[in-house]
């Protein structure tokens, strides 16, 4: 309804949208992190259960919830599959591009859905180490590209929303003659 763009999804996106893996909250999650707009609600939320094997933290289980588009749901689904069994370090190195590639590609306008998913993951990993009080050497102190983009996205969404609130609602005029305008 506003300005449109075609969204040619790949069959893989469609398939994962229809049958997403790892959906829903996780009761015993070690970390829960989200990305998206505080204005309209989180687009994506990740639940992660961490386990330690041979001194290394591994992602044991991951689930998600999404209040986003079909691409977002598919991206989150893929991401949860990708991280399971990986070390936290490996999980950290997953990029939005990896996710998009796994989906067989995304339309450019939908890159941000993958970015949001990966942004949530990076947040989750940071907050895990914050919680356990560690600072692994592979975890940069500065925000990564994806994290910064996620923040920008969130800011943009919020601005969009609030920018409009001033434009609305004057009292409704009466006497509308509907059948013969």
């Amino acid at each position, binding site marked *: *309804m506003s300005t449109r763009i075609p969204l040619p999804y790949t069959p893989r996106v*469609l*398939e994962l949208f229809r049958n997403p893996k790892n959906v829903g909250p996780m009761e015993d999650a070690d970390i829960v992190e989200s990305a998206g707009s505080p*204005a309209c609600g989180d687009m994506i939320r990740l639940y992660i259960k961490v386990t330690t094997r041979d001194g290394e933290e591994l992602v044991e289980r991951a689930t998600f919830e999404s209040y986003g*588009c079909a691409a977002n*749901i598919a991206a989150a689904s893929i991401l949860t599959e990708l991280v399971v069994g990986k070390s936290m370090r490996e999980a950290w190195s997953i990029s939005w591009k990896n996710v998009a590639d796994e989906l067989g590609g995304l339309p450019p306008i939908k890159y941000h859905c993958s970015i949001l998913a990966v942004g949530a993951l990076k947040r989750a990993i940071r907050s895990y180490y914050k919680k356990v009080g560690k600072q692994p050497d592979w975890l940069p102190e500065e925000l990564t590209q994806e994290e910064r983009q996620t923040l920008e996205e969130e800011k943009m969404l919020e601005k969009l929303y609030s920018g409009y609130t001033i434009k609305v609602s*004057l009292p*409704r005029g009466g006497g509308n003659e*509907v059948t013969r305008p």
Partner: protein
Amino acid sequence: MRVSVEELLRAHGRPPREVYFDNENSGYVPREVVEEMIPYFNSIGYGHPSITHKPGWEAYEVLYKTKDLLTKVLNAEGLGEFAFVHSGTEANNLAVLGHALANKGRGGKIVVSAIEHLSVIYPAEEAERLFGFRVVRVPVDSEGFVDPEVLKEFVDGSTSLVSIQMVNHEIGTVQNIFELSKVVKEVNPRAVFHTDAADAFGKIPIDLKKLEHVDMVTLSSHKIHGPRGVGVLFIREGVRVEPVLKGQLSYEKLWPGVENVPLIAGFRKAVELAYRDFDLNVAKMREARDLLVRGILEKVSDVLVNGPSDFSMRSPDNANLSFLYVEGEALTVELSINGVYVSSGSACTSRILEPSHVLLAIGRKHEEAHGSILFKTSRYHTREDIEYTLEVLPKAVDRLRGISTIKK
């Protein structure tokens, strides 16, 4: 991005029934309309209405009969001209930019409602950028109505053009165009009043004798089961617009190029069909719409109705509903897999990731626009179509709500 759409469609599957509600875009074109067009394609060459040979005269006849029919159904005898363009978008550009070009020495204000179609708003902004007009957006109330008293305050002696649509394309609000055009002329008789009736034509009776203060009216063929590719601008005698595009003129003085005769012939038939049983056609779309909305509100919780709550103030084909806690694009995909075709005003369907400006203008919050779905019913929808939709839709909403980060 290169994607095999064929493969996508294979993955999409084959639903037991298909129901098309995206009549905001292109709807069903009935056989009678198609049959008007085919002979032109099948002939050895169909005419250019301005060439002195038989196919040319036949082509000329199509244009002339179409204008005659429009004159009749709109009660416009002797009132002005109808210009043919290729879309409602082009008709709106001709009205707004064409007005600006014809009056560019003078400048002044262009007043539009906040919920106009973008093919009115953007040309108005272009007139501001190029020719020094000033665009003023009149706010609407929470159901999309422009209050004549409010409009009055936005109009003054410097107002050059006012453009307010007859029916809103997303939320179906039917404006009181008679009153609105009257208050404009009361304040400034020289202001030109345009109404975009692309979404009103065929649904709301339009009487141009009665609408005496309306100077220009936009129509579009595909909105009434005609072929896509014909737009019309009615221009009242004495109102000046200049062509926006330039080139070789044919019959049409305001849009260069040769008229698309086969499509116009199809459009003429579509007008004929729409008006042959106007009231019955309207009753059918209204019935389908009412059945649909009633069913949805019964079966699905947390649904907002966008636009007029009094359904007699809303276009008979329009239902715009927000399904809270789900995102609209995902819902269009989910419904499509089940054979139900709709569009959404969600930010996620937009090129600029912005929700529908119409929904925002009526005060919908971002999260309310997020799950908005537009259904447009038509006289071709059957009871079975609606029942099927009412089966499929609650499940689709449920599934996505199950995934959502937001719960009630």
